[in-house]
């Protein structure tokens, strides 16, 4: 493993499988009576959040604490990107505090890359702008693997705002590494112009893709995209790209419905679909902690697993 986890592309197939296998081990341990492991005792993990995301921050915090690391939450929200005053200064402060790992969420794509150049500890990307969110991809892969077994040859449809989605970018890279076949589905305005060069297929037609999908992952659509003319109306988007009961009926019986959250119920996903047994949405949240534990454990080289409890 490299020192940092900034992009899903940083992970070789062996790295990715190691993380998923480690997460499996950790999940087994978590099912035992004592949830806390001493493996990262004495290590400091800083959650550096320039952008609000309570869900992701809590997930990383829980992961670090279950491994007995000291956690410092550093919310730098309000530091505006337009002035860009503080990322380097903040990095130097974290250095002085002896952070072993910095988990960074930032509205600017590439901020974790810059940070990695300024700190000695490991940098974990918890979402940067419209670039990547690699631990989300890991938890998604972990969730799929638990439900479906090996991802080799599995067909995954990722539906929605691919252009602005860090979740889609990371998932495409990681799933390709793990041997799954990904098809991105969106209106043409919500693809990057270069999507043809990505390691996946793409389609404008959700109904054509659904019957051959083992997993359908719905992406959150920001309502403000409508004002920028990415699509005409919410209603039209929902009709063409929303996942409702009729569309779910066209999916194979074993197929899963995923969503990274938070959802716009009724927009990209119908409430009854989100709450159906096919949906892994609640599981994804729990698996997020486990997958992040595995990442922190492996990056920080903690003591051996399973030895104590």
């Amino acid at each position: 493993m490299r020192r940092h986890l900034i992009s899903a592309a940083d992970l070789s197939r062996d790295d990715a499988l190691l993380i998923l296998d480690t997460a499996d081990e950790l999940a087994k341990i978590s099912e035992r009576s004592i949830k806390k492991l001493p493996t990262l005792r004495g290590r400091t993990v800083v959650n550096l959040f320039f952008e609000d995301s309570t869900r992701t921050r809590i997930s990383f915090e829980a992961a670090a604490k279950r491994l007995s690391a000291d956690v410092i939450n550093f919310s730098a929200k309000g530091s505006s990107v337009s002035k860009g005053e503080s990322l380097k200064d903040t990095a130097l402060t974290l250095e002085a505090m002896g952070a072993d790992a910095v988990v960074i969420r930032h509205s600017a794509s590439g901020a974790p890359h810059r940070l990695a150049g300024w700190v000695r500890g490991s940098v974990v990307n918890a979402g940067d702008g419209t670039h990547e969110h690699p631990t989300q991809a890991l938890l998604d892969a972990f969730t799929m693997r638990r439900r479906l077994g090996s991802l080799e040859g599995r067909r995954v449809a990722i539906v929605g705002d691919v252009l602005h989605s860090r979740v889609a970018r990371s998932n495409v890279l990681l799933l390709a590494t793990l041997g799954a076949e990904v098809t991105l589905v969106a209106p043409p305005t919500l693809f990057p112009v270069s999507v043809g060069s990505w390691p996946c297929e793409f389609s404008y037609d959700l109904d054509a893709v659904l019957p051959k999908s083992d997993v359908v992952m719905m992406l959150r659509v920001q309502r403000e995209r409508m004002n920028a003319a990415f699509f005409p109306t919410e209603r039209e988007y929902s009709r063409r790209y929303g996942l409702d009961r009729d569309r779910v009926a066209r999916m194979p019986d074993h197929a899963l419905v995923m969503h990274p959250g938070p959802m716009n119920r009724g927009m990209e996903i119908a409430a009854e679909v989100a709450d159906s047994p096919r949906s892994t949405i609640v599981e994804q949240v729990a698996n997020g902690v486990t997958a992040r534990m595995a990442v922190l454990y492996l990056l920080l080289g903690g003591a051996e697993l399973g030895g104590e409890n």
Partner: protein
Amino acid sequence: MNDRTQNSAGGRGGFLIRGARLLGGEATDILVRDGVVAAIGRGLQAPGDAEVVEAAGLVALPGLVDLHTHLREPGREDAETVATGTRAAALGGYTAVHAMANTEPVADTAGVVEQVWRLGQEAGHCDVQPVGAVTVGLAGESLAELGAMADSAARVRVFSDDGKCVSDAVLMRRALEYVKAFDGVIAQHAQEPRLTVGAQMNEGAVSGRLGLTGWPAVAEEAVIARDCLLAAHVGSRLHVCHVSTAGSVEIIRWAKSKGWDVTAEVTPHHLLLTDDLVEDSPVGSYNPIYKVNPPLRTHADVQALREALADGTIDCVATDHAPHPVEDKETEWAAAAMGMIGLETALPVVQEAMVDTGLLDWAGVAERMSYAPARIGRLTGHGRPIEVGEPANITLYDPAVRAAVDPAGYASKSRNTPYEGRTLPGRVVATFLRGRPTVLDGKLA
């Protein structure tokens, strides 16, 4: 004193440049006296009071002229001043630079352009020719007093809202028409603003992977096409700033084939650097040292730009020297300022991209870095051949050396160069401004 000059007369009696290669290729001596070229020939005798500059192996170029320099004064003296910027220019072999109007306050009145012009005179390192803003405050809403700037002591002939595009078609038409009265030219920063909202880098494979908002080539090309048509319609001169795409080249080629009075420039960095450096470079990913407006494009664009500069579709090289203090670059990509410095590396970069590749000879470099920009800017005392009786604006350049770029020694106040640590060919050995050395032995005289 330095190792290339003998005799301690300090040049008051003139200079004998011995053994420099003229553009035809042959080595000869050049005697400079009283600010002009007094004699050219082999075996010239130095008058007793003349300093001798040994120039064997050096190329003698006409003093370089930049159509596009940001000197930042007034307003951003923390990034550059007229004095520091013109020192950098002299070290780069320039004897004249056009100072862009996006200062604070904007150079949109006779008062500001005269101030900049006088600061250049006082600094004395090279001539500073101010560019006037096209619109008041670069706001793109109403025409600045173009005539007053033209009539001022600064004698402005180039007008540009550079940094911003004159995107309103009617305003652009009126500006093109209006400057005909004093033989002015509108230098357009072609960037359709609606197509580049939030744009961070060239729109393509790399921006898609990096999740940076794309800056499409068509945002530049659409404005160039429109402006060529407008310039043709009203019979005016249009100059296109920093052309960056293969499509822009095609449009300009087409406009020139129609006989329209359209000229264009390309920056050194667009002749050498590509957008994949944003993803992968010796200084890591997302390093804003590569963030520039217009953005670095693809290898195919670079190839098209080189060919267009070689065949004359693009008339000249202009640096777009854009100094920024370090804190404006040591940040995340989206927050960083756009631009890179370029005066001190322009000639080496052009050598690497154009001369060492066989696309241009030194006469071609003289045309594109001296004659053409002086002609477009209507500078009469610059961009002249090195001939007897001409003003002695001369750059002596050693194309044989190769060295790693070390900006620590740069005269520019800013250090935002993408070439740090990279090996580039060539070195400016001396620069003469009307017979007076501004640079000798690679150092400020």
